[in-house]
């Protein structure tokens, strides 16, 4: 069974008097251990799709099944729990808490780990930070770190709850080319170790680092290729 399955997924926003059709029927399957890039021009619906995949938003129609769970009918509270247990987010703007050390930023998701799946939060935080190469930056606050380092802290934060899927929204959008490649290399490494990754980007270079690329236009998939 596929990790992610979308069936005729639609999303319609109401802006004033106008209905905006962000997604107009998307069908897609993502298997475990895939590294998928979603590309498209701005307004193509790729952010909307990522928000729905990340359980931050619910579709207007169609089905979204994540790891066997029918997401469409879940309550806000169940969505929050899925975000905590199954999903790791990496954002374009890093979105780290200011004046909070790398270690504490990384531990943050475990504050909401109700099931207590991760036994030793502090140890686990050190482990994932070391994994992204920041073993010597544990107590630095975000403003003392470079952009690339900040994004690596964000990746470590996304990994700490051992998610089934890593979602990255333009993770290199705020970085220069060299740093971008370093960050992408981390994603490729993680994927080689078995992590399923979905990455949204409008940069073809970045998309080419993935193993599969989907292109969206006007809320529909127009291209789905294995690289």
């Amino acid at each position, binding site marked *: 069974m596929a990790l992610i399955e979308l069936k005729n997924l639609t999303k319609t926003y109401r802006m004033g008097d106008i209905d905006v059709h962000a997604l107009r029927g998307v069908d897609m399957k993502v298997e475990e251990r895939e590294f998928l890039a979603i590309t498209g021009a701005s307004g193509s619906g790729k952010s909307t799709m990522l928000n729905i995949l990340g359980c931050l938003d619910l579709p207007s129609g169609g089905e979204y099944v994540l790891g066997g769970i029918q997401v469409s009918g879940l309550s806000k509270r169940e969505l929050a729990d899925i975000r905590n247990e199954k999903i790791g987010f990496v954002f374009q703007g890093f979105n780290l808490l200011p004046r909070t050390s790398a270690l504490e930023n990384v531990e943050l998701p475990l*504050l909401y780990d109700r099931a207590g799946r991760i036994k030793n939060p502090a140890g686990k935080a050190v482990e994932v930070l070391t994994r992204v190469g920041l073993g010597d930056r544990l107590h630095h606050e975000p403003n003392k770190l470079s952009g690339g380092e900040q994004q690596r802290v964000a990746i470590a934060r996304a990994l700490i709850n051992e998610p089934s899927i890593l979602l990255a929204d333009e993770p290199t959008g705020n970085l220069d080319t060299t740093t971008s490649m370093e960050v992408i290399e981390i994603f490729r490494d993680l994927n080689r170790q078995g992590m399923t990754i979905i990455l949204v980007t409008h940069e073809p270079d970045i998309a080419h680092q993935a193993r599969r690329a989907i292109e969206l236009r006007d809320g529909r998939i127009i291209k789905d290729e294995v690289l």
Partner: protein
Amino acid sequence: MKWKSLIKVALKSIMKNRMRSFLTMLGIIIGVASVIALISVGKGTQADISGKIQSMGTNLLMVMPGASGFGGVSRGAGSWHTLTLADAEKIEKEATLVTQVSPVVRESAQVIAGRNNWFTSVQGVTANYTIIRSWPVDRGAFFTDRDVKTMAKVAVLGATVADTLFPGQDPIGARIRVGNVPFTVVGVLSKKGQNMMGSDQDDIILAPSTTVLFRLGDGKWINSITVSAVSERETDAARSEVEAIMRRSHRLAGSEDNNFSIRTQTELNEMATSVTRMMTLLLSAVAGVSLLVGGIGIMNIMLVSVTERTREIGIRLAIGAREADVLVQFLIEAAIISLMGGLLGILLGLVTAGVIGRAISASIVVDPLTITISFLFSGIIGIFFGFYPAKKAAALNPIEALHYE
């Protein structure tokens, strides 16, 4: 829920904005401080007044002349001569709920001892007066029943009078002149201090009632009768009994008003207590208003804080915080701010109470219950006024919050 972490997060955010947190607390600090200070001073004053009333003797009844008038004009208590020694004797003989009775004859006179002289109040009483007023002699002895019977010219000096007339000397056995009458000093009373009206109770000379009435006074009318009931609980019953005896003694017909009045200590105490209670209540209302204003201040700042931290809330929601988690986080923050305010307010209030107490030389009663209630109440204020901002934070849409600039 991980309370320890939540409290840590809240403390951290409070410490990040130290000045702002302190200013937010200020309303609560002032509110709680004024409540604590007012109640401590109020209770202290109340205790002082009760203490002073008690110092006059606990089971006292005072029979005063007056309350009678001519042609509907009431002259007020004590304004008219209606009491005689016979009344006092009747009460002593007939009353069953009464242990001690002493007539009081009050005169004022210039008192001369050697080269010193002093104008003071001379009160004629009976030998049991020290028991009634729980007022023992310090040196020498009180005069006896025999002295009262024989109209002996003996006097017991109050501490102030003794110090004034005989500075540094032992007055026992000395001769003094009260007006034109020579007396022998037989004793000095212990110090009693000021009464609740602030006048010096030790500025007095006590002498046998008969001596004062017949040698200094008009030989007929006495000023009051002091009666002590068998116990504090029986004061009201004793009062009715004394009233009945007095009406018989004065041959008052059923429809006639009393031409005397009876006061009890309980009444005096209640009067004084009700005045201070009223004051405390009024001032507490003022303090309550400032607590309300403090609470609104907390709500205001929490709303600002929620707006400022929209992005942080978005991050927390994205990584799996439930709405309830965000709600609780902000509630805890508001509660901690107001509890810290409450704690500082309690400290400030106690210091203020101490300063006020010293300034007006009143006692301070620190009531642990008041402190506990103030502390808990400040926490409740924080939660109450923090609820709306916290609710607003929890209801944020994570996607919009994440992209908030």
